[in-house]
């Protein structure tokens, strides 16, 4: 149980003369929400794609559920991790229900899978994201918030032990953000590892167990939100004065901009 689902050591990604990710270590266990934070261009999304096996690290290693990502095929990776991109295409002519069903594609040839298991997983995922009544609507005709929920339902239906979310709240209003992250928290509490790239430091502070703060591709700080979110560190990384106080009613730090 204590074996980490994700174990990354010295992950580095160079392209041309640039180093987008530089020697980052990160591990995560079942039940955790780990947020990758940092300014624009810090390498957060690149790091997540390296962890997901989308790209090959130039140096260092990534293990997912004990196996080196480079050794896993595209099909094997899909059983181990799911992924919600920050900007997924919206012009999709399939109905929302069909899109969620596609989340079951990785399981189609697994002997223990059945049509019944597929139907249950799809239904449950749509129930949790409140998308059942969107099932017969064409995906392209949905609002941004609805599309985000359907995409999340697809990710849930995939039932991978590691869930990767790239800025999952980018297109959502505040209520939508809360729902999305509450759902992420719930996925973790069910025994999955959630790794999310997040821009909103306060959402990251409240919803995650651990943070990884990136700056120019390097890991600046890791640890619990109260360890990482420190006004001096944030000022240095973001080039912006910030203040960290205790959240008035949530047990976590609250980051405020300005003096």
């Amino acid at each position, binding site marked *: 149980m204590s074996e980490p689902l994700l174990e990354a050591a010295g992950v580095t990604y160079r392209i041309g003369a640039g180093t987008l990710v530089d020697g980052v270590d990160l591990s995560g266990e079942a039940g955790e929400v780990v947020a990758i934070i940092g300014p624009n261009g810090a390498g957060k999304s690149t790091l997540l794609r390296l962890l*997901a096996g*989308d790209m090959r690290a130039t140096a260092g290693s990534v293990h997912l559920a004990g196996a080196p990502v480079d050794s896993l*095929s*595209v*099909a*094997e*990776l*899909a*059983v181990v*991790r*799911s*992924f919600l*991109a920050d900007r*997924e*295409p919206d*012009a*999709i*002519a*399939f109905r929302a229900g*069909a*899109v969620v069903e*596609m*989340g079951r*594609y*990785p399981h189609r040839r697994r002997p223990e899978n059945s049509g019944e298991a597929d139907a249950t997983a799809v239904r449950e995922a749509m129930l949790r994201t409140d998308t059942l009544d969107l099932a017969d609507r064409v995906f392209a005709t949905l609002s941004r918030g609805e599309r985000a929920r359907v995409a999340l339902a697809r990710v849930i239906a*995939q039932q991978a032990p590691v869930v990767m979310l790239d800025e999952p709240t980018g297109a959502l209003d505040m209520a939508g953000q809360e729902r999305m992250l509450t759902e992420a928290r719930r996925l973790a509490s069910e025994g999955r590892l959630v790794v999310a790239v997040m821009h909103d430091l306060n959402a990251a502070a409240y919803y995650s167990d651990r943070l990884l703060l990136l700056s120019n591709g390097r890991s600046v700080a890791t640890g619990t939100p109260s360890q990482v979110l420190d006004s001096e560190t944030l000022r240095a990384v973001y080039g912006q004065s910030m203040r960290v106080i205790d959240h008035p009613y949530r047990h976590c730090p609250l980051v405020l901009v300005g003096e």
Partner: protein
Amino acid sequence: MTGVLAALFGAAAIATLTTGAVAVPPLEALAVVARKAGLGALGEPGRQAEAVVWGIRMPRLLTACTVGAGLAATGAVLQGMLRNEMADPQLLGIGPGAGIGAVIGSAAGGVQGAIAGGIVSGVVTGFVVRRLGSRVTIDRTRLILSGVALGAALSAWVGFLVFAADRSRVPPIEFWLLGSLSGSTWRSFGTAAVMIGAGALVLLGTSRSLDLMSLGHSEARHLGVDTDLVATIVLIAVGIVVGATVGAVGVVAFVGLLVPYWIRRLVGPAHRRLMGVSALGGAVLLVLSDLVARLTLEPVEIPVGLVTSALGGPLFLWLISRTRDV
């Protein structure tokens, strides 16, 4: 839907078999087909009717069906894979590319040679298009523009080769660039049908992967679809299908654009069904277009590609006018 298409198809097929320089009454044409296909005697057809219906019009009809079906199915697949409704094998340059090998093959070994050569250069062009596409994935319209430019250059080379070749062995330039079903024989039909059928079966096997790829290629990879492998398989199969059609009847434009465009609106985006119904629609469209090509300026036959382009060009313009780049 398929019922309407099937009825249209039946009417067009009967018209193809019965009309022309030698008019054959429908019942007599039916009798010829029944006897030749071993379905029993439905009367005693005349020898001339038999020669015309079975020797000339039947292979032409069947060639139109397979070529139309093949082009429409490849259009459906390419549009799905490239996530672009403007994708069409000829517009992307794969048809003209196949033409180069087909002309060379034709000079070397007649129709069989043309089909073989068309397949080889069709597959090669498919990969060139893919390389162009991989560089311009951000801008989907540019892929089409590159295809149009590539197609224009390759068409010029087809023309050059035709004029350089032995006129007595290689069909004239309008055959290659505008397409014609007038040279169809049982032999050319047989070879083309085997290759088109084989390619189409492979394409059908990729249909579920293509469904997922319509979520976006990166999303499909996250769901376990090896998109590079699928693209490679699709381009080889498309090259085979399009190459065989070009070797058999030349470049017939816009069938691969027109048919899937309308069929998608009728049957939805799932590729298995889309491919199947598009194939049927393509067969109907090409049989009808060939009928128009034969009868409009009778006794002069116009290239069938003129008819399909007259229909497809305006649709293409309309698609361009409403495309916004994502």
